[in-house]
């Protein structure tokens, strides 16, 4: 019992500093100097964190100030900035997509067919895609055939349980429950 208390105290002592510590900051290669990349990042932030537009607004501001503005329609970015400031994420995202020549919001509705790969292929660790698409949620309610799959899965599980009971050890001895005396060393 005393040992268990010592163990618990050790664990708490180990965990406490971590609970109180502050997170380490960014240490990466730094902000991109290309407006087109910053606009792509702003779109991705809107898609990934739709409830928090502050980071996307920051990226839009960075894009407007970026030294390399090639390939970006700046008036659209300015409009997107206004839209994001008024919390209109949908319009802000569409304007940003237009600003870099992307098809607004359609990629998840009309996903790129597998064979239609852009001519420029990604190498190394490049993502290969230019604009963040909407996520595809996992759970969208039960679909056709799901009921049958559910029943079949349940049946398999029940059969397994029945067999596990039938094949259980005859005496049921030896469960590592702490019963019985420790073995002789």
């Amino acid at each position, binding site marked *: 019992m005393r040992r268990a208390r010592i163990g618990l105290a050790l*664990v708490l002592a180990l965990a406490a500093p971590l609970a109180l510590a502050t997170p380490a900051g960014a240490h990466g290669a730094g902000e991109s100097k290309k407006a087109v990349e910053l606009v792509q990042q702003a779109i991705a932030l809107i898609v990934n*964190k739709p409830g928090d537009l502050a980071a996307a607004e920051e990226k839009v501001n960075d894009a407007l100030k970026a030294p390399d503005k090639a390939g970006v329609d700046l008036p659209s970015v300015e409009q997107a900035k206004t839209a994001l400031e008024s919390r209109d994420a949908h319009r802000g995202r569409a304007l940003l997509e237009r600003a870099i020549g992307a098809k607004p919001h359609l990629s998840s509705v009309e996903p790129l067919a597998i064979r239609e790969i852009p001519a420029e292929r990604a190498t190394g660790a490049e993502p*290969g895609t230019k604009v963040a698409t909407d996520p*595809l949620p996992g759970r969208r309610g039960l679909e056709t055939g799901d009921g049958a799959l559910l029943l079949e899965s349940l049946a398999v599980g029940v059969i397994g*349980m029945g067999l*596990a009971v039938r094949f259980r050890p005859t005496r049921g*001895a030896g469960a590592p429950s702490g019963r019985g005396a420790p073995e002789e060393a």
Partner: protein
Amino acid sequence: MARTTEVEHRDAGAARPPWRRRALDVIDDRLGINALQYPVPEHANNLAWSLGGVTATTLVVLIVTGVFLTQYYNPAPEAANDSVRFIVKNVTGGRFVRGVHFWAAQAMYVLAALHLIRVFFTGSYKKPREANWLVGVTMFALVIGALFTGTVLKWDQEGFEALSHNLEIARLLGGLGFWFTANLSKNVPILVRLYVAHVAIIPGLILGLLAVHAMLVKRHGISPSPAIPDAPSEPREPFTHHLRRVGAFGLVLLGVLGVLAVLFPPGVGPTPVEGIEVTKPPWIFWWLFTLENQIGLKGILWGAGVLFALLIALPFVDRSPGRHWRKRPIAIVAGAVVLVTLIVFTILEAVVTPAQHL
């Protein structure tokens, strides 16, 4: 000739063995399957002692569902995310099979971890089973590798950020991290190489080590249960009884995986964009990312390194003959500290907002 033998049997009035027995004899003559009938202690059929076998059944599920998924998955970075969406939305049964694959991967990690904890708790890594412990720890590392590569393959923001972390860690490792750098093979996207690792290299290594693991279990026997003081007098059962109970547990698991796949199928995140960090890794890696939040990227490297160094060192440090937990207070307290630390770190990551590290 066979007819003559049948007639001789009838003439002699001898009862023919049932067809199932005869079929098994025919197979045994050629494959020697009766060798699996070797005796093992009865406690081998308990759930705690069957965890390794159940983990192996998840491997079978993962291979079968994985073969299905490879028919439709496209590992080119431009198409990978869309091909996963295609599987989910357009392939008959695709969403279900992907769901089973996803949940089987989680189950394999949990079962392998529980198996490892059981082996630790019952002192089954002790002499003469040290080598088999090391084989098991290596397999556990490979399971984590399979989970990592599987996370990257869906090529969404989460997968891409996971890869970005690994590229940075490879940089920290210098020459040792060469495999994870894009420079190794400049014309081939790293996603394609990770795909090869996920479908061939890692499963191949796991299968090879599984054979060694099973062979060593046969060589040393199922480890004795410390809860049974008089081990030699424990009843014995054929190993095939252990296999059939593992099969039964495997069916229960398959049923659970099917239910989870229907009710909670995994989604697909947005296509990835470089330069942002907005997602959390899969829960399996949360404890490492708590360390990263505190001490930076090196935390991941150090955390994983220390954990596996401890696992590897265990059978060489804890050499006392006692297997019962009451006789190993230092090892048990140390193990509990490590386990609770991992759980606390995991919970800490669950409650924080993802931070920008890269």
